[in-house]
């Protein structure tokens, strides 16, 4: 058995053979190991979906919560113990659909959280309905002639919202994926990594080939600190899909705004009921 502290992955998963979740996990593992993180130092928060099963397949602390609610519990844990490296991870449906309000407002909070979205442009676990990111011409059992709405573009949205770190990557490029995960984890603040991940079972449009033919890497000449450029890049989709850090900016994080006295994690602080006794004088 490997050193217990070392992060490991399971042999068994409930994913389909050939699924993009496998290379995603592989790169994630490599990134976490590169960063010398022990299994107990990372806490992963997921929702429900195929992607969301991740904490069962990689040995870190895991809170596998409700569909759409991967994010809020992570905030609670940031409050209780900011020494943990916090990853929020889930599918596109969970993160951008059911969970839309949480990403909206957590971009505003800018917590020190890495947000990995397995964007397979489909609802996998429920067998292939359109997700918010599905192409509008997709046909499914529910969207029999395409969707009734235009697609949600995560990077465009996040740049629009003023997220402090916005990246896109593709499971077909392991090095890039690993680099993006590491950059996100090193970023102080909220970091969205939208990960293009083919679903071989249900998404017959956005296949490995489809992505491979379209993605291109942002090169060094690209300046991710410029919001106007970022918004332009973030809108690119279709024939050419840029991958890389689209926008990055250091800002106050959630914890900076809390009224805590010192940096000791709350979970480690002692408390005696009598400490509160003096409040009674306000009611005298």
């Amino acid at each position, binding site marked *: 058995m490997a*050193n*217990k*502290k070392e992060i490991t992955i399971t042999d068994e998963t*409930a994913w389909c053979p050939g699924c993009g979740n496998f290379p995603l996990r592989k790169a994630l593992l490599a990134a976490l190991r590169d960063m010398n993180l*022990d*299994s*107990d*130092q990372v*806490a992963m*928060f997921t929702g*429900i979906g195929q992607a969301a*099963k991740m*904490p*069962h397949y990689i*040995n*870190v*602390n*895991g*809170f*596998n*919560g*409700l569909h*759409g*609610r991967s*994010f*809020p*519990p*992570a*905030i*609670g*844990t*940031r*409050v*209780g*113990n900011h*020494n*943990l490296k916090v990853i929020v991870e889930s599918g596109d449906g969970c993160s951008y659909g059911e969970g839309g*309000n*949480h990403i*909206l*407002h957590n971009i505003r909070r800018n917590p020190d959280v890495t947000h990995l979205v397995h964007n397979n442009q489909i609802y996998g676990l429920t067998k292939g309905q359109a997700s918010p990111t599905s192409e509008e011409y997709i046909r499914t059992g529910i969207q029999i002639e395409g969707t009734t709405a235009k697609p949600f573009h995560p990077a465009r949205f996040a740049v629009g919202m003023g997220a402090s770190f916005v990246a896109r990557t593709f499971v077909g490029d392991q090095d890039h994926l690993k680099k993006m995960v590491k950059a996100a984890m090193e970023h102080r603040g909220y970091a969205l990594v939208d990960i293009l991940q083919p679903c071989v079972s249900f998404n017959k449009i956005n296949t490995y080939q489809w992505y491979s033919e379209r993605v291109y890497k942002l090169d060094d000449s690209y300046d991710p600190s410029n919001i106007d450029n970022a918004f332009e890049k973030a809108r690119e989709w279709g024939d050419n899909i840029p991958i890389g850090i689209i926008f990055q900016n250091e800002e106050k994080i959630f914890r900076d705004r*809390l*009224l*805590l*006295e010192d940096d000791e994690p*709350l*979970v480690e*602080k002692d*408390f*005696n*009921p*009598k*400490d*509160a*006794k003096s*409040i*009674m004088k306000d*009611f*005298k």
Partner: protein
Amino acid sequence: MDFNILIGGEAGQGLKTIDDILGKILFREGFNIFSSKDFMSRIRGGHNFMQLRISDQKLYGPENDIDLLIALNSETVEIHREQLKEDGIVLIEGESEVIDGRTILVPASVIANDINPKAVNTVFVGAILKAMNLNLEIAKKVLADNFEEELLDDNIKLLERGYNSVEPIYDNLEANITKANDEIFIDGNSALGFGALSGGLRFYSAYPMSPSTGIMKFLAGQQKDYDLVVEQAEDELAALNMALGGSYSGIRSMSGTSGGGLALMNETIGLAGITETPVVVADVQRPGPATGLPTRTGQGDLLFAINSAQDDFPLMVIAPRDQEDLFYTGFRALNLADKYQIPVIILSDQFNADSSKNIKEFDFDSLTIERNIISSDDENAENYKRYKFTEDGISPRAYPGQFKGETVLVDSDEHDEKGHIVEDAETRIKMVDKRACKIDKLIEEDLQKPNYYGEEDINYLLLTWGSSYGPAREAYQLLKEEDIKVGLLSFNDVWPLPKDKLKELAEDAELVTVELNSTAQFKSLIASETLIDVENSILKYDGRPFTGKEIYQRFLDEVIDNG
């Protein structure tokens, strides 16, 4: 003595200031006091009123008949004229039409205009104190506590001018001062927040919703003095999920809302149930459904809270009976949530939340925090299993990062001891049974019996849960004065339902629940849990609290006359 003051006017006229200051003065003077509020769901205009009832006896609730009516506008007189006792007195702005010999004009605006036109309310406080024949000593200290220095002098002037503008009416109120010294005067929302804070609460995440926002406000104000984070969530879904995340990380966490917000938390309460994550949720009830009557009171969420989410899982529901109970419940709920790793719902209500009364100082010596988190020398710390099967169903709890090399995994799907997803029938059954059996232990070790007031030998038994206790307690006393053989059984813990005392008393007595809802939910609960037939229910669902006299009268009309 039973002396009842009603202060009425438009929202925005500063009623609350009068009420706050006058309440504090009367409390410090040493009266027993009960202060309750009737707000409209608006910021300005409309008609709001507050009641301050004082007595030499302990008080349990408000009273309708008014001794002293403080009318900040003439509409207040219209609305409350009927409630005025025969010898009742009205204090009203000078310009208004005089109603009868017992109306006293206070030239409040004229006086205020000289100094600060907005401070009409301080003038009124002065006038009231004079009418009650109390001196200004305590009043000045209360003003000093309430106003910033640059405003204080003006306010004292206003107070004195108000005082001098009228003549004393009552001359022996002071003779009724009996209250002990070791008491405090506190509202229900603060008491609940205070109890939780004393229980080591570290994280309160909520979305504003009347009438629960006072808990959040109390706690927010403590953030600079205590290691506490109060976070306003984007919605109630986030609020409770955030709290669960806090609890998962090892800190005590809580959320609060009213019925409509609780209705957004159901799935998450189930999540707390299946992940066995301790959490406390306060539901400060108001009439519903949907938006209902946002600023009024009710007790319509009992069955909804008990049946909080799909399928079966253990949870506890506690309905504190008054401000004192709210404090101890806030404390105790956190202990119980931790001990049994369950969600605990506290059912308060607007009446409980916004009313203040004098109660004994809280007994901090009686409070012990019990986290039930294992330490590193525990045998379970190695090869840690979050959902280890144990005899009592309670698994060893650890938090992420606590033990080197160990991880903590919790899961919303059915899972095995390690927290991993399973689908096999055998584990499913074992896990359902494991979760369920925690409640058996809770019933044995921690369930609080209802309080019983009365003799052994009774003909009628009043049954209350939560805040109807106060008015029912007063009614009980009134009924006893009429030699009616009545008892009162007041429940605090309602789920699981403590049954023994009820069964014992039910044998010979006719049962009557007293509830602020329209379908007698407590009666239903008693039926389903004990098969005992509750013959009568005194119900009210207009958004207003009971008074003792009202219950008393309805008991005579509806129970005895029909009996």
